[in-house]
């Protein structure tokens, strides 16, 4: 490389990282202990040292367009072993959340998701949408009839779908835009920094690589290489599988409803219902484990973005389970109210998926696929 890289540090970017849990960033004195102790860092251009330097110089482009911040699973080995008390694990966490905000439009929404002061707004938004849309269409009935507790009588399935189906589409579009930029950026960055010699991007090979990393993700094999933070693996795995399970359940029931015209509630003997219940329990249990491991790990910084997601997962699971339990118990008012809350959680999960920490689901997968594609070892 003969071209000189013009360095223009972005001091505000440094302050952003510090605000998002990377406040130890500037303690780094570039000894590279982090890169050496990291169990999952590749040998060629290992992370997180180079990210620490670039981040402490405020080189936003350099770090946010870098796939390596996603290869990090936040094991925390680097943070524990750092001789200067810098916590590269936390810094990379902050960088990821800034990257998520960078790739999702509108950016103001990304900022809001990372800002605790905006939390009431995020909660209020679905409440208003539900009520306004529900009352306007008449699909929200505050006085549902009948003895049996049937949620669709209170909050029509139509109402759910006219809100959530477009929402899913919107999320898909935002992600699609983000993914397009993201993949092209991480490729450009990899070429620029010599992480790969595949100068031209081959889409087909990349998709093959994507397929190849799926088992790795499902087995959480990278996670289990972690030293410091191993126990987080099982909680994370439970949450992942429960999301997969619930995704499957939702799709089956969607087909059941619109294809077969069979309305819920469905029998508890139904195997799909079993999957739903198991997934629900796993979601709560996994969320609890994640929360506990964060609380036990005093030396690791847990910032708002982390708690937002954990509470979302726990809230989602608990409200879902409680909705079902109260329904079975026949407590109509309670069940309807909890169902409403549950839908607020679902809305938060869906609408803010590309903006919250949960977007790592997409970006980490893509980055791991890119690592696989580019032969990074």
């Amino acid at each position, binding site marked *: *490389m*003969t*071209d*000189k*890289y*013009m*360095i*223009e*540090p972005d*001091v505000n970017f*440094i*302050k952003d990282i*510090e605000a998002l849990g990377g406040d130890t960033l*500037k*303690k780094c*004195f*570039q000894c590279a202990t982090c890169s050496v102790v990291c169990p999952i860092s590749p040998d060629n251009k290992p992370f997180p040292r*180079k990210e620490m*330097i*670039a981040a*402490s*110089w*405020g*080189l936003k482009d350099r770090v946010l367009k870098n796939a390596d911040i996603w290869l990090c699973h936040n094991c925390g080995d680097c943070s524990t072993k750092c001789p*200067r008390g810098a916590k590269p694990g936390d810094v990379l966490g902050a960088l990821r959340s800034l990257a998520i905000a960078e790739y999702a439009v509108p950016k103001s929404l990304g900022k809001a998701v990372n800002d605790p002061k905006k939390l009431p707004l995020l909660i209020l938004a679905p409440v208003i949408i539900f009520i306004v849309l529900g009352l306007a269409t008449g699909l929200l009935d505050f006085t549902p009839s009948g003895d049996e507790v049937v949620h669709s009588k209170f909050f029509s399935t139509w109402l759910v779908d006219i809100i959530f189906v477009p929402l899913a589409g919107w999320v898909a579009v935002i992600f699609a835009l983000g993914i397009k930029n993201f993949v092209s950026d991480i490729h450009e960055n990899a070429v620029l*920094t010599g992480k790969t010699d595949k100068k031209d991007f081959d889409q087909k090979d990349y998709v093959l690589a994507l397929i190849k990393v799926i088992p790795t993700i499902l087995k959480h094999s990278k996670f289990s290489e972690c030293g410091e933070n191993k126990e987080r693996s099982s909680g994370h795995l439970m949450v992942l599988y429960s999301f997969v399970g619930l995704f499957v359940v939702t799709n089956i029931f969607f087909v059941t409803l619109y294809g077969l015209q069979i309305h819920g509630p469905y029998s508890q003997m139904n195997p799909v219902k079993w999957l739903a219940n198991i997934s629900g329990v796993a979601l709560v249990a996994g969320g609890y484990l994640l929360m506990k491991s964060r609380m036990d790990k005093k030396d690791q910084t847990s910032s708002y973005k982390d708690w937002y997601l954990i509470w979302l997962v726990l809230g989602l699971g608990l409200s879902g389970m409680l909705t079902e339990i109260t329904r079975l118990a026949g407590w109509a008012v309670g069940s309807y109210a909890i169902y409403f809350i549950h839908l607020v959680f679902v809305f938060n999960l869906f609408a803010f998926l590309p903006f919250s920490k949960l977007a790592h689901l997409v970006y980490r997968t893509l980055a791991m696929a890119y690592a696989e594609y580019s032969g990074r070892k």
Partner: protein
Amino acid sequence: MDKKYGVYICTGCGIGEALNVEKLSAVPKEEGVGIVKTHPFLCGKEGLELLKQDIAGEGVNSLVIGACSRRVNFDIFRFDGCIVDRVNLREQVVWTHPSTKKAGEEGGIDHIQMMAEDYLKMGVIKIKKITMPEPYKLDAFCRKILVIGGGIAGISAAVDAAKAGYEVTIVEKESSLGGYAAKVRKQLPVENPFESIIPPVISARIKELESFPGITVKTNTVVARIAGQPGDFTVSLKKPGENIEFDVPFPLPPEMKLDSNGKEHDKDKQIELYKEFNKGKLDILALDPNGEKFGAVILTAGWRPYNPEGNEFAHLGFGELPDVVTNTQFEEIAAKGRITRPSDGKDAKSVVFIQSPGKGSDNDFSYAGSVTSLVSLKQAKYVREDYPDGKAYVFYQHMRTPGLMENFYKSIQQDPGIFLTKGEVVSVSKNGDGMIVEADNTLLGEKIKVKADMVVLATGMVPATADDPIINLAYRQGPGFRDIDLFNKYTDSNFICFPYETQRTGVYAAGCIRRSMTMEETIEDATGAALKAIQCIESSNRGVAVHPRSGDMSFPDFFFQRCTQCKRCTEECPFGALDDDEKGTPKPNPTRCRRCGTCMGACPERIIGFADYNIDSIGSMVKTIKVPSENDFDNPPLRILALVCENDAYPALDIAGMNRLNYSHIVRFIPVRCLGSVNVIWIKDALSQGMDGVFLLGCRHGDDYQCHFVKGSELASIRMKKIGEALQSLALENERVAQFEIAIDEYDKLPKMIGDFVEIIEGLGPNPFKGF
């Protein structure tokens, strides 16, 4: 003093088992010593009682103690009013030489017994030849301390000396005290937690100084000459730039000593030229009647900023771009107010600090040090103080933040607008109304560029002694310190072994005259130098050596009737202790002397000696060594003499002993004060009495010398090179005489070093003079 001799042999620590003590005890008796006693535990209560009884009851006042090394139990075996010699039977004999003869075995040679007998005899002859030293006392003695330089170092030294009760005079060439410390905006921290820059401490220090009535301050004053010796310096002061007759004369430069044919002028011509060269100045021996008296001098003349030569830093834009400045220029700007560009007065919001001039080398700027690293961090902070959106970059090859200054580095690092990286700056170029700095091999991994409003070069601090002798000593060897070229013109003052000491006894250096350093280090340095000056006064007034032979009461005595005025002693003394008159007769200045004996080693007439260390005492020891010949044995063992420096080599031998290393038994060691004190007559004596080889064991010499007396081992090596002629006259091979260098921690190399020499001598065969 009427001597009464006593020899005491300790049989403890394995001595009794390895040696035939009865036979050994007979040796001193043959030499006429009446009292010879043995004890199994001489350093114990009973053993000491035995010695004390003999001293008190029998009147023994000259003792030979055959036991352990003189370097251990030295306080136990010291008796007031007695001459004591320690014969090292333990470390040098029994611990380093396994018995060559099995117990009860008949025939064969008991080398170890021979060795012990030799050493004991040498001890006896030594105490016969030496006398008790009596200290040299000056007639007039002054306890005042002169401090040259009124910066933070001088002020701190003066305050410390005043606190200890000494009168101090500070001379400062500027019109006010404070020096550079008074010119900075802020300074580096001087106390815990060493985290942030602080307002200059100098004003508080000056205030403290004013509270001591014993401190006199003379501003607009410099030293014209310092004549005399510690305890009795006569100092002539003057205004800067003034010419007075007591300005110190300079010695004739070597090139002026030669005529047009390259031949040295004769003595009278040289004197004439010297007078011509120093016209208007009185000779060094002329004493200023109005001069002020001082006992010791602290040199704290400080530093000046480095002046880049020509286009030395043109690649960094210095001299070409007005916004490229040195760190001192930047400090001046910062001290005046907000940092703005010299070119157009606009805000300097992006400043690049460069620590190394680059050009393929990773050296820092000359005369730089940890202080220049730290100052860059400090000045980076100025940028951030002046501009909330300011950025400061530090490109370094070395970021040196020793000790607790690491805390300062850490705190600076935390600033989001300060960027630090190792890297080589390759160019600074104009870019619109700003500049672009390009650097290679940075921590950011590649060739990078940054935009800069100003660029600051971390140039170094040149010691004042680079331009001027400053101390202006009226010494024959010259007014300044010799050989400071070896130390980049810093005052040579060995950091590890002898900090603050200079090559001139009574002159102690502190602060940036020694090396570039921070104010915190300077303040500490000043305390060290003040204590050294006090040590000098409190030793000189008792007539004892100051350092490194602290407390030594002996001093060189000259038998002037036989002096040939060859000037060798005057020229070779590492400390300039001798001045000579027009005829060349040396004039000793005993309190300048460090008692190394280099003059004694130099003197071809052998007229210089100490009461307890002289040509005769060592020469007699050499002659006492029994050289076995064919008259004694069919196959007589060889004998080698080793003259061993007491400072590093002798302790190394002891450590070898403690580690039970073995080396050849044919060598006899004699400790000497310094290899510089070795007179070649001893070597000639050894060889002419049939010894087969001689080696000198001492400190490393050259640019990174380790000699405790600076020049001793170097001078010895020159003399050893010249000894060849003398050997030829004896028809002996040059290889029979050698000099080896050893450091105290290299004791493990000794057996091989000695063994290799023995092998060479064995190869040469026995000395033909044996048996004559």
